[in-house]
């Protein structure tokens, strides 16, 4: 495979991105979104799951769960570069939906060579939504860190934590450990023994839960990765997962930039639009600079995943690191530069601020990625001299 100078971002990718932009402008404008998810400011809101299922059906009609599924399994088999373009638009509109969860699960399943995985991918291509249940109580998703066990007969017990959009999906892709290693299992959300316990979270555009599994028997055809095969599949998919999160952050950060710049062009203080003042202008430029760095690394990572597998992990961690840093900076400045109004519930910026804080820490914040990169690029500690 050669490395395409244009990242492999082709016309089809462009059409997918443009379509998404238009659909979400029409059906998930900031006004619509605020009305939907911020109708209540009560604390009880934090554990609710609010989303626009009609919009989700439109997204399914456009085949968005199928984009990353191989053609042989009924999908469109598009590259991660095209997916990145789509997810940028999801982030820009801060859409509440199970799309990101499903895309992440798609890449995990696609890294598993099993009949169960192939069946699951066919279902995803047909519109099934899936979320990963692979994080432990301490927030770790390393292969060995897991609070769910699988018996030799495939019966799951334990709790999976920090499951994204758990109440929007039909199936959970559960990581469980057994004496033979880590396996992956498809479990229906309404299966016997499965209890989805909502978390109360700050982000209004998502839901999150921990999932208790009590004697959940998984039939053989729903084993996605056999015990011992799960860790490799998760590692293979991780660059795609990180890239998808980076895309959401880059898209959201661009919304934060454009919205704040528009405010700076129109809000007048001291007889000037506040963008006149360098204390406003220069942070806006720094937002742009950080976004552009993250965006270039985003497409670099996606292109590497598609064309240079050996570079995929390094590029993806760089993209997630830069995107998390950009998200953090842009979130802070979007509130600060809006002044008092930016600090209110009624102002739209709070929605993106909270989504970004959530994105920043999912699957490792910027510093986590850099620590892993250091092991790759400088050698592990004690081995560098």
């Amino acid at each position, binding site marked *: 495979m050669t490395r395409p100078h244009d990242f492999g971002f082709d016309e089809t990718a462009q059409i997918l991105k443009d379509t998404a932009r238009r659909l979400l402008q029409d059906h998930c404008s900031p006004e619509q979104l605020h009305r939907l998810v911020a109708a209540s*400011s*009560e*604390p*009880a*809101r*934090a*554990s609710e799951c609010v989303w626009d299922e009609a919009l989700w059906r439109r997204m399914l009609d456009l085949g968005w769960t199928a984009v990353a599924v191989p053609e042989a399994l009924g999908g469109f088999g598009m590259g991660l570069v095209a997916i990145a373009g789509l997810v940028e638009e999801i982030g820009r509109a801060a859409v509440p939906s199970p799309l990101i969860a499903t895309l992440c699960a798609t890449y995990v399943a696609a890294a598993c060579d099993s009949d169960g995985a192939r069946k699951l991918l066919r279902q995803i291509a047909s519109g099934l939504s899936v979320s990963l249940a692979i*994080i432990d109580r*301490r*927030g*770790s998703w*390393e292969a060995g*860190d897991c609070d769910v066990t699988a018996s030799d007969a495939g019966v799951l017990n334990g709790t999976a934590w*920090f499951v994204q959009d758990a109440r929007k999906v039909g199936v959970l892709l559960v990581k469980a450990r057994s004496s033979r290693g880590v396996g992956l299992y498809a479990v229906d959300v309404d299966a016997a023994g499965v209890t989805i316990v909502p*978390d*109360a*979270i*700050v*982000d209004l555009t998502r839901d*999150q839960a*921990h999932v208790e599994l009590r004697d959940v028997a998984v039939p053989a055809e729903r084993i996605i990765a056999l015990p011992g095969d799960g860790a490799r599949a998760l590692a293979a998919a991780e660059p795609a997962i990180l890239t998808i999160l980076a895309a959401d952050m880059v898209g959201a950060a661009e919304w934060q930039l454009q919205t704040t710049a528009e405010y700076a062009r129109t809000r*007048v*203080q*001291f007889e000037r639009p506040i963008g006149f*003042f360098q*204390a*406003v202008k220069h942070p806006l430029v720094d937002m742009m600079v950080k976004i552009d760095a993250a965006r270039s690394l985003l497409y670099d990572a996606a292109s590497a995943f598609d064309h240079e597998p050996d570079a995929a992990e390094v590029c993806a961690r760089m993209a997630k690191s830069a995107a998390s840093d950009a998200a*953090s900076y842009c979130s*802070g400045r979007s*509130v*600060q530069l809006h*002044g*008092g*109004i*930016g*600090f*209110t*519930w*009624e*102002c739209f910026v*709070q929605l993106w*601020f909270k989504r970004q*804080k*959530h994105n920043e*820490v*999912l699957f490792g*914040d910027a*510093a*986590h990625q850099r*620590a892993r990169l250091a092991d790759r690029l400088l050698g592990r500690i004690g081995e560098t001299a």
Partner: protein
Amino acid sequence: MTESAHSESPEQVVYRAHCKAWLAGNLPPRPSFRLPLGPLEIATEEQLEYLCAWQKAAYSAGLVGCDYPSEYGGGGLRDCQWIANHELKAAGAPFFPNIVGLGMAAPTIVHHGTEAQKRRLLRPLLAAEEIWCQGFSEPGAGSDLANVQTFAERDAEGWRVCGHKVWTTLAHFATWMILLCRTDRGRKHEGMTYFVAPMHADGKGLTIRPLVKMTGELGFNEVLFDDYPITDDLRLDEVGRGWQVAMTTLLHERGAGSLVTPSSGGGVGDDNAATLGAAGLVELAKRCHRAGKPASDDPRLRDAIVEMLIRERAFAQNERRATVRALTDHPLRLPLQHKLTLSELLQDTARLACEIEGVAATLHQTDPHAPAGGRWPHAYMNSYGFTIAAGSNEVQRNILGERVLGLAKSK
């Protein structure tokens, strides 16, 4: 050369001993209900009552307003309030609820009020019998305070006020508001007049509406005046001098005024605002995990936590040095940094705490699994209140550059 002597005056030494002794036996018991994190967060009548009772007790013991003249209800001492503050903090005493009154209204009244105004207003303010709120900000006058549009029109009985104030903390509990109005539309800075307005929220010309913060909490209000009457004896200083009076208020709000504001360490027990300090980071880091180990073992986080501990100590030592004339060059240089450095320290501390928490920072304070009760992500959002309000930090930097370094005005 002998060992350097302590520089406290005999009066100060006696006063410090008094504070210590009184505080040793008179801190209020911890209430059964949750205390707010600070005066801006007071939400219920029972919280207010508890805190007002505490302020009144401290006032009666001479720990509040001790540097104010005794004829107005003060303690008649000199340079002693900082000692009381120090001892209050050391004792972990709860905060005083009448923050706008103590920090802003009282010194302004002392400097600009008539004899009658001082006699009427100061004692109940110090004793927390009357709560104060501030009516400066407006939707179109945030950082640009001189753009105030709320208009006070002269009539036979005094004044009639029409306008819209925002970010009014404690408005629904307040007896009084310090109110900056325009009285001449033809002039900017010279067209403003300063009042103390009674808050008779009986529906006649005065409407108080809560503003919801990005956290979902209340605490701020909008106050709408519609032909609201104020008698002329409630005007502070002369007509057209409102800007100068407001500058006195802001100078004290920023900690740079001559009268030290009575204050304390925060709250009591687990709700203590001190747990939002850098020491709280250390505790948090020992309980949270990163790469399978306590976050307090992560060298990068250790570095960042220590940096916050250093900044926190520097803030406290700035306060200490500000009182030592030989070690301060410009009298406003340290005081005018107070709000800027404190608000950024709180913001950066809270952001670091969220980083320490990792993915658990996604959890809301109502989630039972949220580390430290979810206070850190919440505090991080609330920190923008501090970096924006009372003159955004951008404006603070202008003020420092212009008033201390003598640079050309940016406006």
